[in-house]
């Protein structure tokens, strides 16, 4: 690794390539490197949507080399939370960056008019995107694959939909077929730079330094990916396999976290989707597992006339657009997802915000005047589709507010008790108990993937454990994920990549790492993120759990204020240990 960093200045349209092998030597790659670059280029006190606010993408030493090292890390200041913005996406982007010889990409500035960026090896060119302003995320990909397709070469396309152009803090950025930098508003940050899309391709391969060793490590990993149970579950039913079991243990958030068992769970289960809607699995580049589940949505738009669309689905999407809104028809969920996908919203934030609006309407906090006559109720898909359409048109202040997320809406209009968000970020779909609440509060990106809080909760149902032990296990996992996210491996392959094979892999690439250095990196990266968060104003002492969460039954019972405080205290102590 030379540590090649491409800087693009959108304001001047210029770029330069800088080699920083020391940075990558010390911080490995991916999330740890991107955090350092955020310190270097970002202002924690700055406006996330200001031109100077950087967007950083980074891959790691395993990217495009070993199986399932498929993700790219994006780092920015989040317009949703106002602090650390971090999101990961698969698709072909890591492969293309690697082939272009770029390990990190730093974008600053703002183009005069809507533009797209074409990166080919070490060259970068800004082009006008005026002709496809306002186009959906899907259409933008179709347009650019034709305009920028290179015959015989694989090209990765990252783009925003209209939501990103409108600077919605819940706008995502979509990569290739249905992969997303979903969370924390990267779409708005790109929109603020007038950057509609990035097209990446390259021609580089890496001669193997130690071919024998490399192939041996590769084969072990390949066998684990293709043959192990660990990844099979992601391929077969995929994450929606969780819908039924989570509902059975009261862990599937239903009707805005009112309860954890959903009477419609069977109807929207992974089994149901697979049986009646699944038409194809696809994969990120260099992942032999292929967890991407594509459903087919066939709709009659006029008598005997049908439209057919393919929509990807997974557990989080079924939760956000299904049980959260009390929708028990897969067709309804797919219709909402299709609209969401075209606009380029983050489905989790959107689903939670729709649920907040529904509960607010039912409590009289919102009136028909606010909603422009739309009567909201759980289970009413027609009303939700109407809401999405009005949001897309920015029809009134209320609909423009909705795409700001539920924390913003609740602060302005009320219903804060049932606005389910932690630090401004709507949570993933788990109602498992206190460990998950801690994940949402203290996870560096408030993401369910920051640690294993929800699975610690679930395991408590079989084997109780002292609280201290739970917190320690959670922090240990949060740290370990710093290593995986620096390499950058898809977290679905976390069972495949243990410390031993990682060290063997690094060895085979001629990188000098040992177990001690890896663990040091993990601890340091986690602390550096917390440091950045605090500089932004994140205050663990001021953490708030939505009031409603203290009044509902989770998988492991009621959430207790005192024990939650104790956990927070222990967690913050533990990450410093």
């Amino acid at each position, binding site marked *: 690794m030379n540590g090649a960093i491409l800087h693009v200045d959108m304001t001047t349209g210029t770029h330069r390539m800088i080699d920083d092998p020391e940075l990558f030597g010390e911080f490995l790659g991916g999330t740890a490197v991107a955090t350092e670059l955020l310190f270097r280029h970002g202002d924690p006190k700055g406006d996330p949507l200001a031109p100077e606010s950087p967007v950083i993408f980074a891959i790691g030493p395993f990217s495009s080399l070993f199986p399932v090292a498929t993700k790219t890390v994006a780092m920015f200041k989040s317009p949703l939370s106002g602090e650390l913005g971090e999101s990961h996406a698969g698709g072909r982007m890591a492969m293309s960056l690697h082939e272009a010889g770029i390990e990190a990409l730093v974008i600053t500035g703002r183009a005069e008019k809507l533009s797209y960026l074409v990166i080919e090896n070490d060259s970068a060119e800004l082009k006008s995107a005026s002709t496809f302003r306002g186009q959906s995320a899907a259409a933008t990909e179709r347009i650019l694959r034709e305009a920028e397709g290179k015959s015989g*070469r694989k090209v990765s396309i990252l783009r925003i939909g209209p939501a990103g152009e409108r600077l919605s803090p819940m706008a995502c950025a979509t990569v290739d077929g249905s992969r997303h930098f979903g969370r924390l508003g990267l779409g708005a940050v790109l929109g603020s730079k007038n950057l509609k899309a990035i097209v990446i391709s390259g021609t580089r391969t890496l001669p*193997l330094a130690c071919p024998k060793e490399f192939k041996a490590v590769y084969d072990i990993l390949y066998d684990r990916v*293709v043959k192990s149970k660990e990844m099979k579950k992601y391929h077969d039913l995929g994450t929606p396999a969780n819908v039924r079991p989570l509902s059975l243990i009261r862990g599937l958030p239903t009707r805005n976290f009112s309860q954890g068992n959903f009477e419609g769970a069977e109807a929207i289960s992974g089994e149901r989707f697979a049986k009646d809607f699944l038409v*194809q699995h696809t994969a990120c580049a260099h992942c032999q597992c*292929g967890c991407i589940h*594509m459903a087919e949505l066939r709709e009659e738009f006029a008598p005997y006339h049908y439209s057919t669309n*393919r929509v990807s689905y997974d557990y989080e999407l079924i939760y956000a657009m299904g049980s959260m809104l009390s929708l028990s028809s897969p067709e309804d969920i797919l219709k909402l997802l299709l609209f969401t996908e075209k606009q380029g919203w983050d489905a989790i934030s959107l689903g939670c915000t729709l649920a907040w609006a529904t509960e607010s309407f039912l409590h009289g906090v919102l009136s028909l005047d606010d909603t422009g006559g739309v009567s909201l109720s759980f289970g009413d898909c027609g009303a939700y589709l109407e809401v999405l359409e009005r949001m897309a048109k920015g029809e009134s202040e209320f609909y423009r507010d909705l795409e700001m997320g539920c924390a913003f809406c609740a602060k302005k209009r009320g219903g804060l008790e049932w606005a389910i968000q932690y630090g401004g970020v709507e949570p993933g779909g788990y109602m498992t108990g206190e460990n998950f609440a801690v994940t949402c509060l203290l996870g560096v990106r408030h993401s369910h993937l920051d640690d294993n809080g929800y699975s610690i909760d679930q395991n408590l149902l079989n084997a109780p454990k002292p609280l201290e032990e739970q917190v320690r296990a959670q922090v240990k996992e949060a740290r370990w994920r710093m290593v995986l996210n620096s390499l950058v491996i898809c977290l679905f392959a976390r069972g495949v990549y243990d410390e031993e094979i990682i060290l063997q892999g690094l060895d085979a690439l001629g990188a000098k790492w040992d177990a001690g250095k890896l663990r040091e990196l993990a601890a340091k990266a986690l602390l550096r993120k917390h440091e950045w968060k605090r500089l932004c104003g994140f205050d663990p002492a001021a953490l708030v759990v939505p009031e409603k969460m203290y009044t509902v039954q989770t998988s492991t019972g009621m959430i207790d204020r005192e024990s939650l405080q104790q956990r927070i205290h222990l967690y913050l102590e533990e990450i410093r240990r």
Partner: protein
Amino acid sequence: MTVKYLRVVNRDQCIGCFSCMYACSRMVHNAAGSGKAALRVKAYTGVEGAFSIRVCARCEEPDCAAACPTGALTKAPGGGVRLKKELCISCMACVKACAIGALQWDEEEKRPLPCIHCGQCVKYCPNNVLALCEKEEECEPR
């Protein structure tokens, strides 16, 4: 010696993982990445999940070799083509002549990447999309 053909036998089971292309680059060319692959998996925009896999057909009368102006690319015994690197002038006539788009171009070395029908890609396809066959009739493409 029986002649082996690389064939696409289950196109519709392909998930587009590119594992086959990585395998060819790694095992045949000792390169990490997918850029040295002698086959190509193509995705179609807008039709999510539809992939087309282009592999060397081991032609009886290879159009690619016929198009080569210097004799660098020639028919190998039993079919398929071989490259004499020192004769290649990087004109790309061969790649353009392969109508099915199977013959790939090495963008770093600027020369074609003829398939040697070794079957490494078959070994690393998790979904039985590819097969190495002795006679075409034994594994008709589906």
